């Protein structure tokens, strides 16, 4: 490394000479000191160095990105950190899946209604199959009960402010 090359962000912060084979320098360039500062604050430079050294080269970039993400999450929310985001997202996924189930049940409902309308002409005052009609009506109403049960909104135990969806790896 020539005399004109500036030390990486980690060696600048740690006030040491930046060696040619510095484990941090490919991932913590000098123009972004905040990135290393936050990782150092949460994990410690020594721990980050050990983690990176235990990984093959092609995985170290992603590891640094995920460490930066977790460190940022912990700084934003010192109590829950990344786990808060996981809890919030799991809640969102569950709610969407419930809405999906309701919408799919609604399709079934409408299709059953249409089938019933096609089987019965509009004016049939003397219907001999009243017992069979009652059965199909019973099935339809139980499906409607399911719809009203499934559509009641559940109370959310959101732990903190919702996090914006953000790209992890840029």
């Amino acid at each position: 490394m020539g005399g004109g090359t500036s030390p990486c962000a980690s060696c600048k912060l740690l006030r040491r000479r930046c060696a040619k084979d510095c484990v941090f320098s490919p991932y913590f360039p000098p123009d972004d000191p905040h990135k290393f500062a936050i990782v150092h604050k949460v994990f410690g430079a020594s721990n980050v160095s050990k983690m990176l050294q235990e990984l093959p080269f092609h995985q170290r970039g992603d590891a640094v990105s995920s460490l930066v993400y977790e460190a940022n999450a912990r700084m934003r929310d010192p109590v829950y950190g990344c786990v808060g985001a996981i809890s919030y997202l799991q809640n969102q996924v569950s709610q969407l899946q419930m809405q999906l189930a309701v919408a799919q049940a609604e399709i079934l409902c409408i299709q059953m209604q249409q089938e019933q309308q096609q089987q019965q002409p509009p004016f049939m005052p003397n219907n001999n199959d009243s017992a069979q009609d009652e059965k199909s009506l019973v099935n339809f109403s139980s499906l409607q009960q399911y719809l009203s049960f499934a559509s009641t909104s559940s109370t959310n135990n959101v732990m903190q402010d919702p996090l914006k969806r953000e790209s992890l790896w840029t």
Partner: protein
Amino acid sequence: MNSSRCAACKHLRRRCPSDCIFAPYFPSNNPRRFAYVHKIYGASNVGKILQDLPVSCRAQAADTLCYEAYCRIKDPVYGCAGMVSVLHQQLNVAECQLATVKAEVAAIRNDSAALTVPTWFD
């Protein structure tokens, strides 16, 4: 041998003071819990994080630190952040599916409304 030391002080081989910051959250009967956080964060950083929090929040913070440390040990590349990424993808898929099904419902309702126009008026 002081058997009343917390897991942290046992691991660090030091005396466990009466006001030990780790003792309430790292009991001696679960040494792995402290071993995980020490490996990933270091005892000093964990101590600082807990010190900066009100006492009422420290137990929760210790639990989430343990969980994140465990995830990082299991997956050294992505850790907990990997789960966040997977959940974002699941959220996108669920949103697309919901939009598709809702469009289907709207289309079926439109078709159904068209079919119910009575023909005996002709």
